[in-house]
């Protein structure tokens, strides 16, 4: 469905020299510098897949999305979506995609919501009967009924987002790009929006590319994750692969009356590993030990700990996806 091969995008940036002399100089002899916002990105997406496209701020996510949607032309590399190149024959291509930018709206701000759909109907040349059918469907999934006659500027953020998603689905696109669709929304609204996206994906087999900073979106929706950083791929795989690859981190929590537990537990020395492999924190009675279970087996950790100090209560926790990704962003693993 979607093939992205060695995508690269460079931007020219003018370097301004300081001072008046510099300004005048740069007016006549502008010094430019090439900055690669996207260096080398490749991935494939299957028909009907929901792909979570993530990465820290400034990783190049937006630039990739803009190239996939045809807003920007790649410096080199190719992307093919449904056999089409986004920048060749733009008009034909954009008929097949829907795009939601969570931070901006495509709705007519001052008019009742209904008007937006009326104009979009003309832009996408949706026939009357098809339009009615489509509106009924979107109404049902995204519950637009309550506010379809209200001016867009009066809608709440959650309503606006639902309306925006509906607007991008009006022409029944095969691919839906969602850039931060849950940004700034409360838990309940986020949940509703995720449900709607999932429903549309199941029902119409729409391929979805989702960028988000909310990993709960990813966990609930995405079959697969592509993570990029500094313009290159960092990870490509399913969530369970991510967990098994980087998720060997365990957290041991226990409750003890021993106030010097931290000093007495010399894991690194005992297991002959580096100090960084076992991190111990103590706060009153609570002691937290983070370690890599592929270096030290959990059972050995428990045996050693219980032999050293008196413990009232104990638990072992899996690293959650949020933590793995935070560590990936900080380059602690990988």
């Amino acid at each position: 469905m979607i093939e992205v091969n060695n995508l690269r995008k460079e931007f020219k940036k003018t370097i301004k020299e300081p001072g008046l002399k510099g300004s005048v100089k740069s007016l006549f002899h502008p010094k430019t510098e090439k900055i690669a916002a996207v260096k080398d990105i490749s991935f494939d997406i299957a028909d009907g897949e929901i792909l979570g496209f993530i990465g820290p701020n400034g990783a190049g996510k937006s630039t990739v999305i803009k190239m996939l949607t045809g807003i920007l032309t790649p410096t080199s590399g190719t992307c093919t979506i449904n056999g089409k190149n986004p920048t060749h024959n733009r008009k034909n291509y954009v008929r097949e995609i829907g795009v939601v930018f969570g931070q901006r709206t495509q709705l007519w701000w001052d008019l009742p919501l209904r008007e937006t759909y009326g104009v979009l109907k003309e832009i996408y040349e949706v026939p009357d009967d098809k339009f009615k059918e489509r509106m009924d469907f979107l109404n049902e999934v995204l519950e637009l009924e309550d506010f379809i006659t209200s001016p867009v500027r009066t809608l709440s953020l959650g309503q606006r987002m639902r309306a925006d998603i509906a607007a991008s689905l009006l022409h029944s696109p095969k691919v839906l790009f969602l850039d931060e669709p849950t940004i700034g929304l409360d838990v309940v609204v986020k949940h509703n929006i995720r449900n709607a996206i999932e429903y549309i994906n199941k029902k119409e087999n729409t391929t979805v590319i989702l960028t988000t900073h909310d990993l709960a979106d990813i966990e609930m929706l995405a079959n697969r994750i592509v993570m990029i950083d500094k313009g290159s791929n960092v990870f490509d795989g399913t969530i369970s692969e991510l967990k098994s690859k980087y998720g060997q981190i365990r957290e041991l929590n226990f409750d003890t009356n021993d106030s010097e537990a931290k000093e007495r537990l010399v894991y690194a020395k005992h297991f002959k590993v580096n100090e960084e492999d076992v991190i111990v924190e103590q706060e009153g009675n609570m002691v937290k030990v983070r370690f890599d279970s592929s270096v030290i087996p959990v059972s050995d950790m428990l045996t050693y700990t219980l032999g050293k100090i008196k413990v009232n209560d104990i638990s072992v926790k899996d690293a959650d996806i949020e933590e793995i990704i935070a560590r990936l962003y900080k380059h602690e693993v990988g």
Partner: protein
Amino acid sequence: MDLIQLFLAYAKTGIKTRFQYHMDSFLLSFAVFFREASSIFGVYFLLLKFDTLGDWNIKEIFFMFSIISATYSLFIMFFMVFRDFPDWIKHGDFDRILLRPRGIFVQMLLNGADWVAALSHGAISVLMFIVSANSVGIRWNATNILYYIVTIISGTVIQGAIFVFFSAFNFYFSKNHGIKEFVFWKSRRFATFPLSIYGRVVQNILMFVIPFAFVNYFPAQYLLRKSDMAAYPAYYMYLSPVIAVVSFTIAYLFWRFSLRYYQS
């Protein structure tokens, strides 16, 4: 056919948007109307002192003014987006245009017509036309009416070309509001008066660089036949449509070419 339908859809939303803010639209239309009217009064009082300006009397100058207002009124119905283009790029509205399955340029033309301002300028032009058209010695026969219509269309397109051309620079630099506005408004102000009263440099600029002279001066000459036309080749009176086509083609090609450099 299809485009007309799209135009109507956009026009409907444009007008409805204006109706959302009755008071604002009302005040804006008055403000525009009075601004224009005040410059007409400026001309009026000037002419009270001099009687004629380079052989042109007040009615004839009003007639020239009515051409400017009429073309400008049409201009803002189609080329507004090019006027406000830096904002369009900044707010990501241009990205949205790229995401829609219609011609980029067509969408630019259809988007964001300022109906209120267009009506105000239209009203001024009708008023000036009524005041002047029958007392400046024009015989409104079929040829002259046709000539007048072609003049209005050409004048609109020439002004559009100026803005399209300058807006293309926004693909390279995000800000050039200043130059564009300065060039356009200065030229427009110059075009209020007969070209022949200016120095050589200004005349050349208005004929060959920012061709405002072909928006109203030379067409008015065709209809009025004033003596100062002797200073220019007679065929200039028929050149406006050519200038319109040429300047718009250049502006359009430059704009399309510059689109490649769009960095979003």
